[in-house]
């Protein structure tokens, strides 16, 4: 696990950025299903700063991973061939649309149709960004990562983490009643269940694959064994985050719903971060490569 902690900037990036992006899936569901008045929309728009901050802090964390961040604008040179270039491009496209949407929404002059349309586009771009983030690790010389379980995991984390952040934004915006209304409640729970299945199932599938691999430096079984407690702790946090979300959409006092939203978000950050560290700890090369 020690080598995995050296990848903390990337673990933070792949935790925070997909979470922030995934929150727009819940916001899109809210705009499409709930009846929100102008005041509520205004509060939601101001509180959208939370998922925006998650995305931006995630990208800043990624910069700390680079030895020469000044050359970072060159990352688009590998577009189409380098999975890392593709990931950053997907992230930048998402960020540009996110900033345009948010800035426009903050003016209070965004037409309802445009809001719904842009929110759906952002939700789709968020999922694409999450998938490309996972695909960046699909390298054919790293046998334990070269599996669709990677992108499926990140997609799951974007949905679970996004659900937590989305619920928090809506709870803080005083939309507890809208959250427990039929359609939005169903949407949140559906996102949550799909996210938990993809996130936990993806990591479990990757751990099982890594368990049977071996090279001249280490065995996958040993790596999985050393990461096992971290995986268990991550899964517990992620499931607990989902439970908080369930209580939040069941309704209750405004402060209780906010409390559940905060709990869900904190537990989601902890759970996803632990599971990302476990991912890095299970790198099994086909040859002579190890994280340092």
């Amino acid at each position, binding site marked *: 696990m020690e080598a995995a902690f050296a990848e903390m900037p990337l673990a933070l990036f792949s935790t925070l950025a997909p979470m922030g992006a995934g929150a727009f899936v819940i916001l899109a569901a809210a705009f499409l299903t709930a009846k929100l008045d102008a005041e509520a929309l205004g509060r939601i728009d101001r509180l959208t700063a939370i998922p925006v901050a998650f995305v931006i802090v995630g990208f800043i964390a990624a910069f700390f991973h680079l*030895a020469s961040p000044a050359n970072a604008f060159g990352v688009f040179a590998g577009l189409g*061939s*380098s999975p890392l270039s593709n990931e950053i491009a997907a992230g930048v496209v998402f960020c540009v649309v996110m900033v345009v949407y948010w800035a426009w929404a903050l003016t209070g002059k965004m037409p309802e149709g445009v809001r719904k349309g842009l929110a759906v586009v952002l939700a789709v771009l968020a999922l694409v960004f999450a998938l490309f983030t996972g695909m960046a690790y699909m390298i054919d010389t790293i046998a334990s990562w070269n599996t669709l379980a990677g992108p499926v995991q990140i997609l799951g984390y974007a949905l679970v983490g996004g659900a937590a952040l989305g619920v928090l934004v809506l709870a803080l915006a005083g939309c507890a009643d809208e959250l427990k209304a039929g359609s939005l409640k169903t949407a949140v729970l559906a996102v949550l269940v799909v996210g938990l299945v993809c996130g936990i199932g993806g990591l479990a599938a990757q751990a099982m694959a890594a368990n049977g691999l071996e090279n001249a430096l280490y065995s996958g079984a040993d790596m999985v064994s050393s990461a096992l407690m971290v995986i268990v702790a991550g899964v517990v946090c992620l499931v607990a985050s989902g439970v908080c979300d369930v209580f939040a959409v069941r309704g209750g006092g405004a402060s209780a719903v906010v409390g559940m939203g905060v709990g869900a978000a904190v537990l989601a950050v902890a759970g996803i971060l632990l599971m990302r560290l476990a991912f890095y700890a299970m790198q099994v090369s086909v040859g002579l490569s190890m994280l340092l």
Partner: protein
Amino acid sequence: MTHYAFHFDGTRCTGCKTCEMACKDYKDLGLGVAYRKVYEVTLGETKKADDGTFASTCVSYPLSLACNHCENPACVKVCPTGAMHQDADTGLVSVDADKCIGCGYCHMACPYNAPKVDREKGHSVKCDGCKERVAAGEKPVCVEACPARALDFGPVDAMSKLGEQADIAPLPAKSYTSPNLYVKPSKDAKPAGDASAKVVNPLEVM
């Protein structure tokens, strides 16, 4: 257009690491950085018999390895900036320090442990095949330093006549990157991909 390859003769190598030191000296590399490394590869087991005697099948062999300047280099394929590039004429793979962001993607992808991010320099570093020496008609300094003549370097056509393409453990199957390394294995050596052969000096080479 002449692509170049290394040759490693496992029947001659003593594991003295002169190649590694000559490279470090020539390239003025600091502590913790080496472009050529000698892997100590060990396999087998020692068992105690009922009569109290021991029988061992343990063997060890050295493998001197640097960048193999692969025909299909994993490091070049994943590099987001194009900093890691292959010279079309010589096939030698090197780093453009002005483009490199030091993301370490090349290090992760290379199955031969060749590129590393030097955070002090701010970019990836690796063996460039002593391209300036090659351009002057000389061989890389590691090859010329080898006292046992276990290393050689030259056009792929010539080197491929001296051994099998990277077919020695702990190297991966050649199909991943088509490495320009041709090996004559020692009699104890295992073929590429055989995980029973372990690297026993990881703190030194990784």
